[in-house]
């Protein structure tokens, strides 16, 4: 009897692996770029000293770059069961996190590592119980799990106003950060219809962009997402 069950389990596992391999072979890649309208200068700083910031006399001021604050998410039109990836790292690398915004799949474990030279006391503004209490010492880490999708968590140290990181929870494993030019790549996207959404800093942008992944081996889809001019304003 045990042998028989063991044979069944092995066969089922092999089936899953085969299915996954087949799906991987059938999945495609979505690449694209987020187009941001021309910015009208820099955002105002969180703080200022006794003087107003002044431009240097040699070079023009570098414009505000929103790309590090954006995340592109591809959501399937029809609900599907999502298996959360094993772990997501969110590194504190000094006076800021490595990325100001990350996306985390529902149920995924998040590990915050302190790679700076200062201990911090982190907390989530929206859920005080999300991050374990206590000081996050240098080289230490704290982990927690995001249980719900479509949530936005603001992580920070109350004593350090400029230290803010945001975690947006999603119900799809297809998400990507942007480089400084706004380019992104989403791998392993199964065939199907999707909608591409962009998260900026602390809110979702609209409109959504429809994406269709055709069936076939190593399909590639190129999309461009245009961001409205008032994207900085949360609606």
């Amino acid at each position, binding site marked *: 009897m045990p042998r028989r069950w063991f044979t069944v389990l092995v066969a089922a596992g092999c089936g899953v692996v085969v299915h996954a391999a087949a799906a991987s072979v059938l999945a495609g890649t979505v690449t694209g770029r987020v187009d941001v309208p021309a910015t009208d200068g820099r955002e105002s700083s969180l703080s200022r*000293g006794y003087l107003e910031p*002044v431009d240097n006399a040699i070079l023009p001021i570098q414009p505000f770059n929103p790309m590090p604050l954006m995340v592109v998410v591809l959501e399937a039109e029809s609900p599907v069961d999502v298996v959360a990836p094993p772990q997501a790292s969110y590194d504190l690398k000094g006076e800021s996190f490595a990325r100001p915004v990350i996306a985390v799949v529902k149920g995924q474990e998040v590990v915050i590592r302190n790679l*700076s030279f200062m201990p911090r006391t982190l907390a989530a503004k929206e859920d005080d119980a999300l991050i374990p209490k206590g000081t996050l010492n240098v080289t230490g880490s704290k982990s927690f799990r995001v249980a719900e999708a479509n949530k936005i968590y603001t992580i920070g140290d109350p004593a350090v106003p400029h230290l803010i990181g945001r975690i947006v929870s999603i119900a799809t494993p297809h998400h990507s950060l942007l480089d400084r030019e706004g380019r992104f790549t989403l791998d392993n996207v199964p065939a199907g219809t999707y909608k591409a959404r962009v998260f900026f800093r602390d809110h979702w942008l609209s409109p959504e962009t429809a994406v269709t992944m055709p069936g076939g081996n190593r399909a590639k889809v190129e999309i461009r997402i245009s961001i409205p001019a008032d994207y900085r304003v949360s609606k």
Partner: protein
Amino acid sequence: MFFSKIWLFLLTLIAGAAITVALLLPRPAERAHVLGEQQRLAVGCGVVNILLADNARRRVDFARRFARAPELGKVLYEASAADQLDERRMASAREIGNRLISSAKGDAPDFAMLIDTRGRVVARAKRDEKDFGDLVAGRPLVDDALAGLVRDDLWVIDNTLYLVAGAPVMGREPLEYLGAVVLGHRVTTELTRSFTEWSRGDGKSQRFHVELAVYLGADLMASTTPVAIDTAPMIRAVSGLSDRDVIRDCQLNQPLNLKAGKEEYSAVVARMPGEAQSRQAYFTVFIQRPTELGVVASTMAIRKSDLSPSSFPWPLLSAGVVVALLLGIGLMVLEADRPLRRLAREASKLATGEIDRFAEDRHSGRFGSVARNVNIQIDRVARVAKSAKQDLDQLLGPAPQGSLGTIDLLAAGPSSSGSMPASPPPPPSEFRFSHTAKPAAALDLGLPLDLSRPPEPRGPVARPRPPAPAIPETPFAPAMPPPLGKPRVLTPPPMPIQAQPLRFDDDILGAVSQSTSSAASPPAETVAAPAGFFDSATDATFRDVYSQFVAAKQACGESISGITFDKFAEKLRRNRDELMSRTGCRDVQFRVYVKDGKAALKATPVRD
């Protein structure tokens, strides 16, 4: 006296107002003093803000010059291109940073931070020199410096407050951003003293001297004085400040009263901007709380210069005092002294007989009232005198001119001259203090002029009647004179009673008996002449009087024991002789009457 009272009232009011003002003036002065101190604090606070801004400008300029160092651009360029920063690169960059700091003239920064375009710290100089590679992007100043802005900020590193300045590092060829530098100056005691140097003046005047202290919450960062003041009120005040522009705190904030041991201070707090604001960084400008001013303290605070004629209106005050004094004296003289002297003069004249009464119209106010009252009394006495005269006239008959009337009779006492001419009687409403008033004095003896009116009890001046001598009881047929009516009450005039050798009283026996001991015997020739005339009839007359007197006493229920005719006759005779010698009358008629329920005897001179 009316105006004197008004003047006294006014002076009292002025004095009261002056005292009130003197007591109240220190309070507005103290408020003005406190307000002045508040303004002084606000000015001091504002000046510190200005100096902090000026200091920030100098630091930013220095950071800009610092960032232009060519070797700095090169090392940051290479670091920006590298994915990993190593220690060798850090050491090279740190050496550049230290060299640039050492070359700084004057106020060198306490640390320098060299940052590549990715926001990583390539190297630190002067502070945490071994730390590198961490991300400082995200700090507003670093983000702005990497973007090309030059600015200042306030950072808190390891619970130490730093004034920091950031500037971009730019490459010339090609022209691009290579990173940024951040320079920090620690807030020190020397720095705070440099911010209050202006208030110390030239060393002679400490008038505008203020102290400055910089805090991070309850932690003191730096102070110009070692005084440890209570931070709790300051933290509360800082927590209550909500204006976005912290520079306005100096104007919007109210001064606080702080304590440091036994000393009290007035302070004003102002938040400090930048990142440190979230750590409750603020500074306080404070001064020793001014002593409260009271009347004594205000008086003690008077300086010699305050009393100089140029600063105090001495002439005006002197003139006012002199005018008030003269006015008071004048009113006193006009309303008190002169009327009183006038009244006194008239009283003297009245006493000496120069005038008969006060001239009421010459006296006003209370003095006029006194004069009127005296005149009323004079009139009353005169009326009494007139009434007495009328009674005498009625009793004795009208006195012809030059004959002996009642008054003449009484005026012929031993104290007055019998040759004094007769004066006309005073009017009924008047009384004259002259010798003619002597009869009125005689009337004070209580002589019942109207026998039909028995005398009533007298006032305080009435003298007690001498007791009647004991007379042996003798059979006597009463022959009482018919009652003539009710006895009249004579109000005694307020005249001193002169010694009267002869007293006419209703009880002539008593009077005679009293006077017999002291009265001298009548002159022989005076007694002798009438003696022959009377000798034949006197005895019978005296007996008749004696029997009437005894009968009257018996009728009154009095004892007549001890009364003998010889004694009675002897007294009558003496009395008659004495009366005749004084008045020069021809005879004396004795009458018996009843007074106060007792028998009495009356002697009446007979002129013709």
